[in-house]
């Protein structure tokens, strides 16, 4: 893997790799919510306002405060989405029953060494927080 940090890439490359997924370390016992607060430098209110769509291993996260991260997870962070489906994909959506056949996805974790997860940033979260990721530093696969 190749480490990327501030000054080592341009904006278009950054946008592309963050959409495809980069590898980021998480802390022992860290939950989805605490990871977002730390990595994106947001308080709880900021998370609720800016990161309304949370997808973990292709399943929706409705309780980010108690969902603990596991090595190999793929976590997607997105703003609120338009459309009926966008609404039902929101974290703890009032119409979440409409997506009840989406599985939680533990069996879709990647095999990674150490406390690494694959993080994808989309839309306004991508534009507003890509520099937070650069500041933190992350890894990409060599062939990317």
């Amino acid at each position: 893997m190749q480490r990327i940090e501030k000054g080592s890439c341009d904006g278009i490359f950054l946008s592309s790799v963050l959409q495809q997924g980069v590898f980021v370390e998480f802390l022992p016992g860290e939950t989805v919510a605490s990871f977002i607060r730390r990595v994106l430098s947001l308080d709880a209110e900021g998370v609720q306002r800016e990161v309304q769509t949370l997808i973990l291993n292709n399943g929706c996260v409705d309780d980010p405060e108690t969902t603990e991260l596991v090595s190999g997870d793929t976590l997607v962070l997105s703003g609120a989405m338009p459309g009926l489906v966008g609404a039902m994909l929101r974290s703890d959506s009032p119409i979440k029953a409409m997506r009840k056949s989406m599985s939680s996805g533990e069996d879709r974790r990647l095999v990674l060494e150490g406390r690494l997860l694959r993080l994808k940033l989309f839309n306004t979260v991508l534009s507003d927080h890509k520099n937070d990721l650069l500041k933190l530093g992350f890894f990409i696969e060599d062939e990317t």
Partner: protein
Amino acid sequence: MDKILRVKMGSKPEYAVEELGDYAGLGGRALTTKVVYKEVPPLCHPLGPENKLAIAPGMMSGSAAAISGRISVGCKSPLTGGIKESNAGGQAAQVMARLGYAAIILEGESPEGKLYTLVVKKDEISLVEASDITGLNNYDAVEKLVAKYGDKAAYMSIGTAGERKLAASSIACTDVELRPTRHCGRGGVGAVMASKGIKAVVLDDAGCSMRQPVNADAFKAANKLFVQGIKAHGVSGQGLPAYGTNVLSNVINEAGGFPTNNFSKGQFPNVHKISGETQAETEIARGGKATHGCHRGCVIQCSGTYVDKDGNYLTKQPEYETVWAHGPNCGIDDLDAIAMMDRMDDDFGLDTIEMGATIAVAMEAGLAKFGDADAAIKLLQEVGDGTPLGRILGSGAAVTAKTYGIERAPVVKGQAMPAYDPRPIQGIGVTYATTPQGADHTAGYAIATNILKVGGFVDPLKPQGQVELSRNLQIATAAIDSTGMCLFIAFPILDQPETFNAFVDLINAFFGLSMTADDVTALGKSVLTMERDFNKAAGFTKEDDRLPMYFKREKLEPHNAIFDVTDEELDQVFNW
């Protein structure tokens, strides 16, 4: 909007301006549905003289109310054989409403196959032989019309797909730049307009003024709060303006509900190449626009301008459904090719959802390989050229699948499904199955159900059935479709009670009403009841309210989901 223009086509085309009568107080979908329900024999042929095409701006169109520029078109559909309402943005709704017409109703049939241009001005209505634009596609036809009738008018037109009466043909409405980019796309409404002998409608509101509210002060105050709420919300104020509706591609793909290669997979590996984020960056880098409104008075601005590699205008910013239909559903990851097909659809006058789904079916039939963008463009060109193959493709996904012996036709009531696979996202599958319109993601879109309490309050702490939610959503959507408001207002309304209150106050102040949630429910139910009754009389049964069987049999990765809502549950959606 106190009158109706009724155009009777025949050996001697004529028109009459009528009072509203039974149609008073209605607009948009409510009005077009009532016209079709009351005046069209359900068993008529959709292209026969008994069918009618009703064009109606929303109840709030032509006023200063923000985002009130949707126009509805209704008829019996040549694609589904049932009732159809298809709506679009653009300038037509605002201009037609300011002209004072609640509806234009086209009836009869084309005299000797001739096409006419209907010109509607403040004090003048005329039917002009359209020999100068017959045989032209939308861009060329509109250019000639603008040269003749000016750049202040709004235009509705059909391309050659409509002239050939293809079941996937649309009616184009011009946008702010007088480009034919906003389409009443679904259900083959373009073919019905052609069958009436109308190539184009010119709407010129010179000398007319904006519709005035009954209570001006209350209206102004409510509109201000409404706009503030829309701009403050993350979806309508940030996500949609920055990325357009294609902001959905990445997320729906990640959720495993992004139909790929004719609904055979739920994820597309190269989604980042066609995502809204990449599309917006591409547009900006080339000198296009990533933020633009489809009509004056829009404060969301979810559209844009897509330019080619040399910076020349190619098309408006392709929407999510278009990007998906011509992209991942055909295995294509080339934004320029997708934009080219969007341009061709707009020009020929075709529904982008239907055409993308159809090309994917054709690919499954072996006419081209999934992922081959050049071959997809050639197939679409066949439609534009009117070849025998093109006429099959232009008749939609169901006809194409039948022609080539393909089971996997993702259609309900003959209409192609939009960009959400109903297996992992079953709630939308219930709406696809049961809406009287044929598979349609916008039929159950208005997610303000809890605030409106339409159909009963849904406790967010308890998992509710897909059926109950779909019912409530369809009722609320039918009501909002009648106002002329863009459905994207649903998000600030859902999340911000003060914006919902401003929305209700806006309507009440405009009409001098005291509308309640019960009134909204009653309006939505009445529209759906008429639509259901029309379809029943046209021969539809509960067996038509089903998804194709393979959605119950073929598991979709990554969730390995099938559509398992039972038929008995589906039959409960309209049980009021």
